[in-house]
């Protein structure tokens, strides 16, 4: 059967009237939450509270409550940081890069992915701050004139990280909000509730859907997408420099930036898939977030998963080709040393299972996709764990080798970050339109002029 690749898949199924689209998308915001939603929210909030208590314990008693000890000075804290930053990357990729590539299918999932970016960066931001031990001194990372005449060391990758992550968060937030303004206007004009109307009016800024506004708006949206694209690539690059600029074997490697960026997109898409599979089910949005979307995301997971697998192979090659006995030892130690279990979880979840997406049946099967994307999330968490802990636990000085074990507080903070993320996602799903109203309307069949006599005049 010949397939016409020039034809795009429909971004939404069927041909619903615009009003009906509004209804479907706004429904979760105006109906009472279902029992299922309440149970899930209760679980995530409990996790969030556990995390908060564990962070409280850390602040009260100190960092000694964690399993970190020399030479493993970075462990769960930085693993979680890199993991969550990576999760965020898919959102910007979907909203900015796919926008520039004119991939219309992104519209159904872009808003959600952008929101997940923001929440993931919020989760990530917690970790570098709490792992300093005295988080109230984090203000010194901002270059402000103080009585010490003390400036941040702009040469340090850790300070680059501060700039990269805070810029990333701000730009993602602005990008997300710019997309939300017209939707706030729609909500404002639909609601009859006075309090809601006031809130929506404030956030819509008095947007009037005027073509004179749309014209600038589209331009700015494109500029923001254009700026967010190199930004998202730079953020995980800078995160990887935290490691690559150090001399620890297994970190000091030029492959890190592309390797980290591919891994970030890989894990981010897996997380977006995980959440969307639930959301489309809970809120009856199978026609807007379609199977085609999931299949396309599975293709990207397959691609980026293979890139990550390639990076693993290159690490082995470089271990041998560099001729450095230390590098070779580190690579062997990762695969066969005390943390071999983590390495093989990582390899199987990241390299082997995503390869199943070569089969179209599996790509289009929601349950199997769900299992694989969750495995990918697990695998990518372990990738960071293996990179950080396995390298540090056996560094240059064998006398100080140390087997890191997480404590209960470590685990509590990890689960707490998941609690924070999913609580925010659930709250978002009921307070804001999870699909961009203006964008989805603009790609419905018949939404644009037929260009019969108007074309090319």
């Amino acid at each position: 059967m010949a397939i016409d690749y020039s034809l795009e898949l429909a971004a939404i199924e069927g041909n619903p009237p615009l009003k009906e689209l509004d209804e479907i998308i706004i429904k979760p915001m105006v109906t009472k939450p279902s029992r299922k939603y309440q149970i899930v929210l209760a679980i995530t909030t409990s996790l969030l509270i556990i995390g908060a208590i564990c962070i409280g314990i850390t602040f009260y008693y100190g960092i000694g409550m964690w399993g970190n000890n020399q030479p493993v000075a970075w462990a769960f804290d930085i693993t979680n940081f890199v993991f969550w930053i990576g999760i965020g990357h898919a959102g910007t990729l979907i909203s900015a890069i796919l926008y520039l590539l004119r991939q219309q299918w992104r519209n159904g999932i872009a808003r959600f992915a952008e929101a997940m970016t923001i929440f993931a960066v919020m989760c990530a931001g917690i970790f570098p701050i709490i792992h300093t031990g005295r988080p109230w001194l984090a203000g010194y990372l901002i270059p402000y004139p103080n009585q010490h005449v003390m400036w941040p060391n702009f040469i340090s990758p850790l300070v680059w990280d501060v700039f990269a992550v805070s810029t990333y968060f701000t730009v993602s937030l602005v990008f997300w909000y710019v997309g939300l303004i017209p939707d706030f206007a729609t909500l404002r004009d639909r609601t009859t509730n006075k309090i809601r109307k006031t809130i929506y009016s404030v956030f819509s800024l008095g947007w009037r859907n005027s073509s004179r506004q749309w014209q600038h708006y589209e331009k700015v949206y494109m500029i923001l997408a254009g700026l967010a694209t190199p930004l998202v690539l730079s953020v995980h690059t800078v995160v990887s420099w935290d490691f690559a600029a150090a001399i620890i074997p297994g970190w000091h490697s030029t492959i890190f930036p592309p390797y980290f960026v591919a891994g970030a997109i890989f894990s981010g898409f897996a997380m977006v898939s995980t959440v969307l599979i639930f959301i489309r089910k809970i809120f009856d949005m199978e026609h807007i977030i379609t199977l085609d979307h999931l299949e396309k995301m599975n293709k990207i997971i397959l691609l980026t998963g293979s890139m990550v697998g390639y990076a693993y192979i290159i690490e082995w090659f470089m271990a041998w080709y560099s001729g450095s006995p230390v590098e070779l030892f580190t690579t062997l130690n990762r695969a066969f040393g005390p943390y071999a279990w983590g390495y093989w979880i990582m390899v199987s979840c990241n390299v082997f299972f995503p390869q199943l997406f070569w089969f179209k049946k599996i790509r289009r099967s929601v349950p199997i996709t769900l299992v694989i994307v969750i495995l990918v999330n697990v695998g990518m968490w372990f990738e960071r764990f293996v990179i950080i802990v396995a390298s540090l636990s056996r560094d240059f000085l064998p006398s100080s080798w140390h087997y890191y074990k997480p404590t209960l507080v470590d685990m509590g903070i990890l689960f707490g970050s998941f609690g924070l993320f999913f609580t925010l996602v659930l709250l978002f799903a009921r307070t804001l339109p999870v699909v961009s109203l203006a964008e989805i309307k603009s790609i419905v069949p018949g939404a644009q002029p037929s260009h019969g006599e108007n074309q090319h005049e």
Partner: protein
Amino acid sequence: MNDGKKLFGVAALFDTPDEILKAAKTVNNAGYKNYDVNTPYPIHGIDKAMKLKSSKLGYVTLFFGFFGASFILFFMWWTLAVNYPLVIGGKPYFPLPAFVPITFEFTVLNAVLSTFIAMIAVVFNLPFNSHPLHDSNYMRNVTSDKYGVVIESEDPQFDENKVNELLRSLGGKNIERIFYPEQKEFKVFQPRFVVFLIIIAIITSVSTYVTLNKLMYLPPFSFMEHQNKGIAQYESTFFYDKREMREPVKGTIARGFIPYAFTGVTDTNEFYSNPLLPTQKVLKLGQEKFLTYCSPCHGNYGEGKSRLRGFFPPGPTLHSARVIGFSDGKIYNIITNGQNGIMPSYAYQTTRDERWAIINYIRVLQRAQNPKPSDFSAISEINKESGNASN
């Protein structure tokens, strides 16, 4: 019919994007300037139909992007090379490659924020929630699923009947007259607003003060009165027993410590013998320690005339036959353990060798009080040798 309200314009709704495109083109060709097209989403080709000039916001991005890049580069150069020059990692004061990441991030941040603010605040003049179109039936439709044109009364060739006719001929539905909302006048300095400003000012200044001067306070290095150390006799906030002075760990043995077999035993007949010979060095040390620790009670020559008499039970003379008869070891035992409940132990003030040196010195004092005839001849011989005829 106007109810005294001022007319803002006349609006019409259309059902399809093709219709609105045609309407926009016709209205524009009819020579109207102050009109607007409102659609639920951007319509392709509407800017051409309305003959809109393309957006200039890209120049804002460009300018502020360059501005951000040059500002942050200048700033990093100024902080690390001028204001507080510091060699870090053996790099020059201005290591350009190491400044690239932050320059890039700041460029993006500056460009994005300035473009966003320029669009919202400068180009659109938002927030603007009191626009006449708001809350009209027209607005409720164009933010949902209809496409609308509004021709404003400000337009130089505005004539209500003509506009109505034009819109109707284009197939416009729900033709609606839109009025300016009643202007509510507010005084700028209402009491509530002033109170609000004051509260904001207080919250801002208190939180800034607490954050910078309390939360983030680090004593500058030059203030040496703040030292992170424990001082003896002070209460500790760290240790459970609240003592800054720490006792040695149980079982700690001082360097050079040799245990004394009769610690705390006063009635013994077995004693150590003096390991030190009465050399000049030993006697000098003994004299020094005797004058420090023994003389306050026993007198400078051991004669028992205390400087502390009247304040403290007087020490006995060391020249009695009984003391002369004590063995060195017994005196050592008395210094170490104390005696009669009046003389305390001097084990902590003096070392072993110092105690033996003191005993040697006491023997010298005793001999000086009861010299032997041979001592006189020895002294005259010493005087003769050194040629000391002064006496």
